[in-house]
């Protein structure tokens, strides 16, 4: 019960901060837009080909903007030594991790909810029949990515060139999550192999569990002062 309250307190702090400055969500959204638009220029948007690459474009936009959001959120903690403040509180280190993951998932989800309709309009996708499943996949992919990303952004925030370090650490390790999220999205959007996408979703759940547990266990070693 107390743990839940502590998590909510940290979460509330992060959300309030974001509501005041709005810099993370705005920069993430703008960046995701740009990625989508660049893809429209680099591929021929009128052909059928772009529809096949749509899941890939969607996830590249989400992951790249997610990467920006993660590095921003920890840079902000560093700038005002806010992390010290949180660490001074009598809170279990692992709870900080949970709160941070939830916060990052929330920010990334908001961006997704903005980007998804834009993608649907620009690429003329039909997602009506699989919308609930698609939202589940988006959530699971984001959860895994944010789970690894929260740990790594804490690490990279303490390195010399943190903006460069985060993607270098994050993307190779999260290959399984990226792969299964993209694959299940592709099967959902193609509308043919719903069964195939289900097995990928199961795999994605498994990866999420593994990564979240490991990162949860290791977080205390990263955050100690």
């Amino acid at each position, binding site marked *: 019960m107390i743990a839940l309250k502590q998590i909510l307190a940290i979460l509330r702090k992060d959300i309030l901060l974001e509501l005041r400055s709005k810099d993370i969500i705005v920069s993430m959204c703008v960046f995701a837009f740009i990625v989508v638009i660049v893809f429209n220029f680099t591929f021929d948007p009128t052909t059928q080909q772009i529809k096949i690459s749509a899941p890939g474009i969607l996830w590249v936009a989400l992951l790249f903007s997610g990467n920006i959001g993660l590095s921003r959120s920890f840079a902000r903690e560093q700038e005002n030594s806010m992390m010290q403040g949180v660490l001074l509180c009598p809170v279990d280190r692992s709870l900080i991790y949970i709160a941070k993951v939830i916060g990052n998932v929330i920010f990334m989800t908001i961006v997704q909810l903005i980007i998804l309709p834009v993608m649907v309009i620009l690429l003329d996708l039909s997602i009506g029949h699989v919308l609930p499943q698609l939202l589940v996949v988006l959530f699971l992919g984001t959860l895994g990515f944010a789970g690894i990303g929260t740990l790594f952004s804490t690490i990279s925030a303490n390195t010399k060139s943190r903006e460069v370090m985060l993607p270098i650490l994050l993307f*190779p390790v999260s290959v399984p999550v990226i792969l299964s999220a993209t694959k299940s999205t592709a099967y959902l959007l193609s509308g043919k192999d719903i069964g195939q996408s289900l097995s990928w979703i199961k795999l994605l759940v498994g990866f999420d569990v593994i990564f979240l547990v*490991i990162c949860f266990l290791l977080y205390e070693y990263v955050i100690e002062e």
Partner: protein
Amino acid sequence: MKNIKLTYLVLIVITYMLVLTGLYLAFIYAPPEKTMGDVQRIFYFHVPSAWVSFIAFFVVCLAGIIFLKTGKEQWDRLAASSAEIGVLFIVIVLITGPLWAKPVWNTYWTWDPRLTTSFVLFLIYAAYLMLRSYVSNKERGARFAAVFGIIGFVDVPIVYMSIRWWRTQHPTPVIGGGSGSGLAPEMLTTLMFCLLAFTFLYITLLVLRYQSEGVVKEFQALKHKLQN
């Protein structure tokens, strides 16, 4: 001190002999493969390199866990040395692999699970080495590296599994890999011997590398003492 030096020397000599014998076996003793011809001889050093990089990354993970538990600095040194050797051998794997694939499969690269996993492994441990050099606080950097090394190693089977799922439809090229896949007995002996030789090579390189880290450490301690 003298005894230790002698042990090193013996280790180096043994490794040297083993690798030389391995070369002899690979080039003269083992018969040429029927379909692939002499290019297949890359195999005897390609597979052991993959094996060494795998052990090396396992040691990184193990040393990382022990370091996080005990906080003793020498485990971090061991992990750093092992990671460097692992990256060296995974680069060897990634270079010799395509050189073997080109004349045999007529393509440098396929997105087969083993190839892709090796590539991702290379990316992970290259990131590991970068991380080590990018943290100014030594003690904290060691902890970061240990955490990343553990996650990186746990990631290996997961990456392999996900890529295998991803590429199930793709025909995986037949490599004379695992045991009993129609490998002539001489070839199997050669492979086993090369695996042994490369394991020794790994141990020797690790000892040398670890030792050189020790000298750096000594130097820094001396410098620190002087400044105070």
